[in-house]
């Protein structure tokens, strides 16, 4: 039934691409042309803001085809019906409730052996190769420091390597100072309350991560949500906030904090940082940037979204990130001015009450950061950054060509491929798994109800052969499940674009000739 539906819809629905239900203003292809003609200039000159040179990535959110949307709702309806039926059967004792852990157990198979696995997060490391160096460091540190620290930073939990890591981190992200925490999630949720409170306003992107949402709520500040990456909506809300002040009393806000992510984990879009910085300066707001998915993975030096847009790190007031993805460790950090970090050190919740980061984890982060920075004396880190950038473009272009609806920016290694129908979510995951490809699928409530997707994350450890294998599998299953919904013209970016090749100097050789 669904199969026929897809084809019919394709003919019947006008191709209104480039803007997605409610939240996007990018026109398909237009941004791409702009990038070429205007040499990547932001067109904010009319606001009296200096135009800043930065790459404008191709970004696209194709609208859900109408018929697919209808079918999806129908699918959920059937699902709910069966759910109730199942509950009824459970009550009558005819069947047992499902056990969640069963699916989790299967995962172990993957760890190292499968040839083509799309990793759930953008790690730049492939374990087999890195073992020798990084892991040796971690092991040595375990011997030196043991495991847990058993005390908080305010008490007796300051290891010498904590300081070393914080100094190196500050250098890496280009700020005056930095501070580390034991958990990425808690870095957001327990530090935002120290920065803002009652009488302050948080302007939060509608797609911000759960930790940012929780942090905002815990802080007690007023929260207003702006449309995803929409500069117009942000400016409207900022302007109104400054002009009208707090509701009812009309007192001016104490501070306004704009909270955004570098790469949005579910949309694969890159934040429009230069414009946000311009707005923030114009209205004197503060900027909180969560680089959980972008640090180490974006930009010609792997230093995150600030590096990608060539912005000044001091323009971002609070630079937050995690060590779980690109550094293969655990925990999170906040970097910024000396004043900010001193304040956080003295009054951050995590700093006072949580055990500090264990030594071996710190060692892992230190070593991988040194490699990315090239401080280990090799160009291994640079090669990985470029490989990841190349992988991203290549993989995204191929997916577009195959006709999948792919969200997000051309340079984001987080790649959401739209599935829509609830029945296909599980099938896609299982078919891929059967063929040796591990993918993550996400449905409602993590996404809007009609926008279920598979989130693919690329790693520098993937070679072109692995990507091709993965693409073949996705191609095959995509046809089988008729997931190739896209009616938009294939975007024109590619891994061969000259600007792209200028930015990333050590792109892999496989790009030449073979493709």
């Amino acid at each position, binding site marked *: 039934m669904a199969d026929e539906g897809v084809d019919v819809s394709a003919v019947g629905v006008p191709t209104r691409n480039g803007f997605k239900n409610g939240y996007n203003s990018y026109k398909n292809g237009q941004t791409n042309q702009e990038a070429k003609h205007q040499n990547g200039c932001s067109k904010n000159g009319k606001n009296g803001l200096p135009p800043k040179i930065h790459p404008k990535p191709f970004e696209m959110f194709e609208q859900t085809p109408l018929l697919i949307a209808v079918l999806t709702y129908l699918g959920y309806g059937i699902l709910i019906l069966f759910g109730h039926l199942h509950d009824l059967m459970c009550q009558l004792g005819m069947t047992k409730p499902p056990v*969640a852990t069963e699916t989790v157990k299967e995962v*172990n198979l993957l*760890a190292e052996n499968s040839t083509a696995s799309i*990793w*759930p*997060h953008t*790690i730049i*490391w492939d*374990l087999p190769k*890195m073992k020798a160096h990084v*892991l040796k460091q971690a*092991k040595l540190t*375990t011997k*030196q*420091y*043991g*495991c*847990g620290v*058993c005390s*908080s*930073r*305010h*008490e*007796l939990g*300051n*290891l010498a390597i904590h*300081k070393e890591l914080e100094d190196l981190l500050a250098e890496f992200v280009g700020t005056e100072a930095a501070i580390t925490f*034991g*958990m990425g*999630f808690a870095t957001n949720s*327990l530090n935002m309350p120290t*920065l803002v409170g009652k009488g302050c306003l948080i302007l939060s992107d509608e797609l911000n991560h*759960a*930790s940012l949402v*929780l942090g905002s*709520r*815990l802080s007690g500040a007023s929260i207003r949500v702006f449309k995803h990456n929409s500069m117009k909506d942000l400016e409207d809300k900022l302007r109104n906030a400054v*002009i009208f002040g707090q509701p009812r009393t009309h007192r*001016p806000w104490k501070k*306004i904090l704009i909270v955004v992510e570098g790469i949005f984990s579910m949309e694969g879009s890159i934040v429009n940082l230069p414009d946000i910085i311009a707005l923030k300066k114009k209205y*004197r707001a*503060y900027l909180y940037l969560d680089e959980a998915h972008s640090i180490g993975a974006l930009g010609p030096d792997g230093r995150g979204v600030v590096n990608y847009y060539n912005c000044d790190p001091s323009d971002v007031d609070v630079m937050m990130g*995690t060590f*779980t*993805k690109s*550094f*293969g*460790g*655990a925990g999170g950090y906040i970097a910024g001015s000396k*004043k*900010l970090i001193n304040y956080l*050190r*003295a*009054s951050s919740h995590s*700093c*006072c009450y*949580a*055990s500090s980061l*264990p030594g071996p*984890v710190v060692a892992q982060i230190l070593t991988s950061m040194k490699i990315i920075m090239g401080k280990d004396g090799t160009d291994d880190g640079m090669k990985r950054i470029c490989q990841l950038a190349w992988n991203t473009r290549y993989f995204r272009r191929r997916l577009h060509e195959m006709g999948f609806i792919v969200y997000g920016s051309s340079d984001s290694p987080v790649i959401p491929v739209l599935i829509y129908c609830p029945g296909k979510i599980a099938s896609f995951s299982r078919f891929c798994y059967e063929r040796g490809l591990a993918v993550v699928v996400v449905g409602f409530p993590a996404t809007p109800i009609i926008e279920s997707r598979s989130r693919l994350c690329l790693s520098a450890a993937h070679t072109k052969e692995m990507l091709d294998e993965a693409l073949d599998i996705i191609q095959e299953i995509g046809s089988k499940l008729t997931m190739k919904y896209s009616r938009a013209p294939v975007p024109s970016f590619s891994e061969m674009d000259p600007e792209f090749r200028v930015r990333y100097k050590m792109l892999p050789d496989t790009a030449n000739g073979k493709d």
Partner: protein
Amino acid sequence: MAGVSADPVDASVTSREAAWDLYEMIQACLQAPSYHLLFEAVLIVWIIQLLFVKSYKAKATLTEKEKEELIEDWRPEPLVPEVDPEHPVLQDMENRLIDGKIGRHVNINGKTYLNVASMNFLGMSGRVDIEASISTEYSQAEVAIDTVKKYGVGSCGPRGFYGTVDVHLELEDKLAEFMGVEEVIMYSYGLATISSAIPAYSKRGDIIFCDEGVNFSIQKGLVASRSKIYFFKHNDLEDLEGLLKAQEREDKQNPKKAKVTRRFLVVEGLYMKYGDFCPLPKLVELKWKYKVRIFLDETLSFGTLGATGRGITEHYGISIDNIDLMAASLEHAFGSYGGFCCGRSYVVDHQRLSGLGYCFSASTPPMLTTAAIKALSILQENPELLTKLHDNIRYIYEKLSKINGLRVMGETVSPMLFLQLAGPSDNRELDKAILRKIVQKAEEQGVVLILAAYLEEEEHTLPPPSIRISVSAELTHNDIDRVVSVIDDCYQNTVS
């Protein structure tokens, strides 16, 4: 047919009447006196004016220029206030750095100290056999082969997104077996464990009864839950029962609402701020009597209390089935990282989809998980660790309480003791300064102590300033004698 022909006739009659009315009106107007007409005209003009005049509101909107001025004038507060660079915490972070393992001794800035500051109660952190299980030779059994070699350090994903490694499941199973519960759920951060668990169950409109002396993590969980919170006085059962009774009365008045309201009681096994136990047997009685669910935080009591380290329930000899949810930390007694919640499957399982810290955070690094597995097996194989610990606590408690001028807070079997000034002044800062001096002097003599750290403005209740002594099973009686004599000495020196 007749009816149809009658209609136009009727219509013409009515229109003729209407025209007649109009004619009469005009006649009346012409005959009316002119002052009357004038008056009516004035009234009509007035009404029109009232209708079309610009409303007052429209005048209130700001012009673009005014808006620009407002924007220009607005000056926000600085993002953060300036902190004194001499702040002891900042100084410590820069200059009081540990190098090497944390155990009975600790190496700070190249000098070795006797350690009664780290919450390494069983001496698990730094044990050679734990390291072995995560780093090198320990490879007899297939399960524990060289974790780092096998998995690397980070797990790079939340549990639901390919972040589950077999060792996570192994630890969960082993802990469940150890605690005698159906299910265990692991968190990657001790502080986030109970603060994620509470809002997973208690929502807006629900009621939480909570001891006012609970630790910071619980306090954050309470805020996140957005439930109605009643604090009762620390360990005061009468106060609690009063609140429960008041709630019962209210429920009777509004049974419809009471039906959909969940009631929770949140307590700590061993209070992190006071070092005393909760009166669990009485609390369990109240729980059954007033139908509330107990959430128990065993951050400190897990692995330290009871004959086998199962915590406060074992200490009191209460079946763990009475406890609806228990949260504990692996960061203290187990010397690893993270925490866990345990209880019945249908309770705990709920967190796998709604525990924020579980769903959205990367899982614990596998190497630290194996370290916890190893710590658990060490604890099970060496029950004498706990007897040693309890013996040490009794010994140090007795010795410390003999010091003149200082008061010991905590129980004789609590691994965490608080030393307060016996005669505190009204000035908190002054007391803190005295205690800090004691800490500094002790450090000069080779014993590392710490002041219990609190974020004073954020805490719900603030205990008096105190030096916190964490007792470890590793300490010998000689060590304890030395610690006590150093503290005594330093105190007398400071005061005199």
